[in-house]
């Protein structure tokens, strides 16, 4: 089912959480709302779910081109997954998953046998077949989140909304679960929107990413698009580490005050022992840090003492045989220039 948000605003007292936000999600798509905390992404998700109302008269939420703005959350047929799972502590895993089915009005309520079959099917889907009689406090974080997902899927929602689903989990479990979520989405093909502040997670999992900042959507696009062609400095800065130079790259980022800023990712900085054509910048290595597969090198430019972060592969690092206080030259492989009127 497709979802459309049209001109939604939301304010809490004096602070505005959403300013005239519009978003279209195609049927079966997996979209990430990515942004720093306080950017309004969770508010947008809650408004789509119907848990919160947008400011009166501000805009509409459409499911399959039908206005659902005034429909209760329970009638929108959504599946909502909370960051802290919100499982029913007093119920077993089985009863948690069956809750939505048992809550249906009695005319639509499936028989006990049908409920049992459905719950077992979902338990298999989330790989928790042997945990039906456990209670939430007997499960680990990742298991709880999968139960929460199964519970949301039990009512066959038209759309799945996940609020920072992996935010409370540790790094390894988080990486495992997001791959699993991607696979799950490819199997069940339900329209999914998930909120995250982790750019790596959004880039890896989503079909499209909506980058949010200051109550607005800054850019919507595929992971490649937002990463390779960021619309503005904020998007560039939020999607990864960066170096900032004043001036345009075309005339080499040297002089200040030329009205533009240039961003370069650390891995796009090339370190050279010699200056082949005179265009490279002279710098001195101030620190070398190992980070597993990559090596982080901190340098200082000779001309304006600006510090620069570079990321090298282990191989390149060994080929250069860098040491602290080495005098080297740097070149930018790939960079983005924005004019100064953007502020980040």
């Amino acid at each position, binding site marked *: 089912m497709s979802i459309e948000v049209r001109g939604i605003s939301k304010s809490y007292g004096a602070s505005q959480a959403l300013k005239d936000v519009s978003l279209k999600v195609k049927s079966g798509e997996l979209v990430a709302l990515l942004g720093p905390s306080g950017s309004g992404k969770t508010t947008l998700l809650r408004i789509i779910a119907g848990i919160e109302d947008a400011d009166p008269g501000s805009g509409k939420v459409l499911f399959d081109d039908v206005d659902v703005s005034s429909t209760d959350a329970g009638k929108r047929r959504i599946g909502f997954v909370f960051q802290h799972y919100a499982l029913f502590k007093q119920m077993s895993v089985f009863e948690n998953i069956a809750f939505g089915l048992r809550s249906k009005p009695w005319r639509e309520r499936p028989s006990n046998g049908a409920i049992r079959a459905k719950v077992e099917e979902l338990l298999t889907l989330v790989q928790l077949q042997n945990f039906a009689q456990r209670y939430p406090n007997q499960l680990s974080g990742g*298991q709880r989140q999968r139960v929460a997902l199964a519970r949301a899927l039990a009512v066959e929602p038209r759309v799945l909304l996940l609020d920072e689903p992996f935010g409370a989990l540790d790094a390894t479990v988080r990486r*495992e679960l997001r791959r699993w979520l991607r696979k799950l989405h490819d199997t069940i093909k339900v329209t999914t929107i998930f909120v995250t502040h982790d750019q790596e997670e959004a880039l890896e999992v989503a079909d499209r990413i909506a980058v949010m900042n200051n109550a607005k959507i800054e850019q919507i696009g595929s992971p490649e698009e937002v990463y390779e062609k960021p619309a503005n400095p904020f998007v560039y800065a939020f999607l990864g580490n960066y170096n900032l130079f004043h001036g345009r790259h075309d005339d080499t980022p040297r002089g200040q005050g030329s009205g533009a800023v240039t961003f370069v990712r650390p891995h796009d900085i090339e370190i050279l022992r010699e200056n082949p054509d005179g265009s490279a910048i002279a710098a001195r290595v101030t620190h070398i840090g190992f980070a597993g597969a990559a090596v982080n090198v901190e340098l200082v430019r000779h001309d304006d003492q600006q510090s620069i972060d570079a990321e090298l592969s282990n191989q390149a690092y060994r080929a250069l045989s860098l040491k602290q206080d080495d005098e080297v030259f740097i070149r930018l492989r790939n960079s983005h220039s924005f004019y100064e009127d953007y502020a980040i």
Partner: protein
Amino acid sequence: MAGAPTIKVQATDGQAVRRATKRSFVGRLLVGVTVLFLTVFVVLPVVNVFSQALSNGVGAYVDTFYAPAPNPDAKPTLYERLKLSAERGRVERTWSSIRLSCGVAAIVVPLNIVFGLAAAWAITKFRFKGRVLLVTMIDLPFSVSPVIAGLVFVLLFGRGGIFGDWATNLEWSDPTSLTWQGFTGHWWPLAFARTYDGIIFTPLAIVLATIFVTFPFVARSLIPLMDVQGSEEELAAISLGASGWRTFCTVTLANIKWGLLYGAILCTARAFGEFGAVSVVSGHIDSNDTMPLRVEKLWNDYDMQAAFSVATLLAGLAVVTLIVKSVVEWKTSRTQAAEPPEAGELR
């Protein structure tokens, strides 16, 4: 490997660590002071209540609650007959106080459970203006002397009070006096045998005063609990299509049931034990006596043993309350204890 040093693995769970901690002088001193204080101010008085009640033997204790049956063969003298009827009256008044106390608790506790739930719900699940003021208002009965609370009701509903005109003319039927009067001459077979005029100096005033004094217990025991739990589980239930009522019954109530029971227990104990407020509004009429008031009257009549005998009922209630409370606390901690998760394919 011979000669290898054996390494003792230090237990890491809390209890073991606590056991391993060296018992310091300050720790012993504090434990000693606490035990001494409790013995002098709690244990000894309670033991005293029971020993005084039984000071004239078990027979006298039983006589407080059951008047001796008259001997049908003996011809009692006038003095003996008067003494016997006085004895009967005394026992009857004691039983009346027990009935009234139970009746008041039976009305007050359910009402305060509903009020307390509503108040705790409003305060923890909604954000509105005057929320802090409402929390303070709930605590008011704790900070106001119960005698003042009773006096407030007298000033409200008594003669010359703010609602005095209305209240003194109010006529209400005693619901406990409902009797079967048959169909002869009536189309409705049930009727109230007794009616009261006014509010002050009737059992209704006692109920009102007790509601006021015991109001905070349920709300107070629920607010911190519901604050911690937040409203995510309710939102989850609503988003799954559950109705408001079903959400309340299966999610909210299930989460707070032990806290609610805890509040209800404290509320019951106080409803039975309340003295000050009830004393002011009862007007010292014998039929308005609750158990604490009855204890006072017996004491003032120099009937120490009978006073202590009625007091044993209150003390016994306190002991039962303590036991139920401990069971509830044990239950609460047990449902919250987590078992370690089993390692699965995905964690």
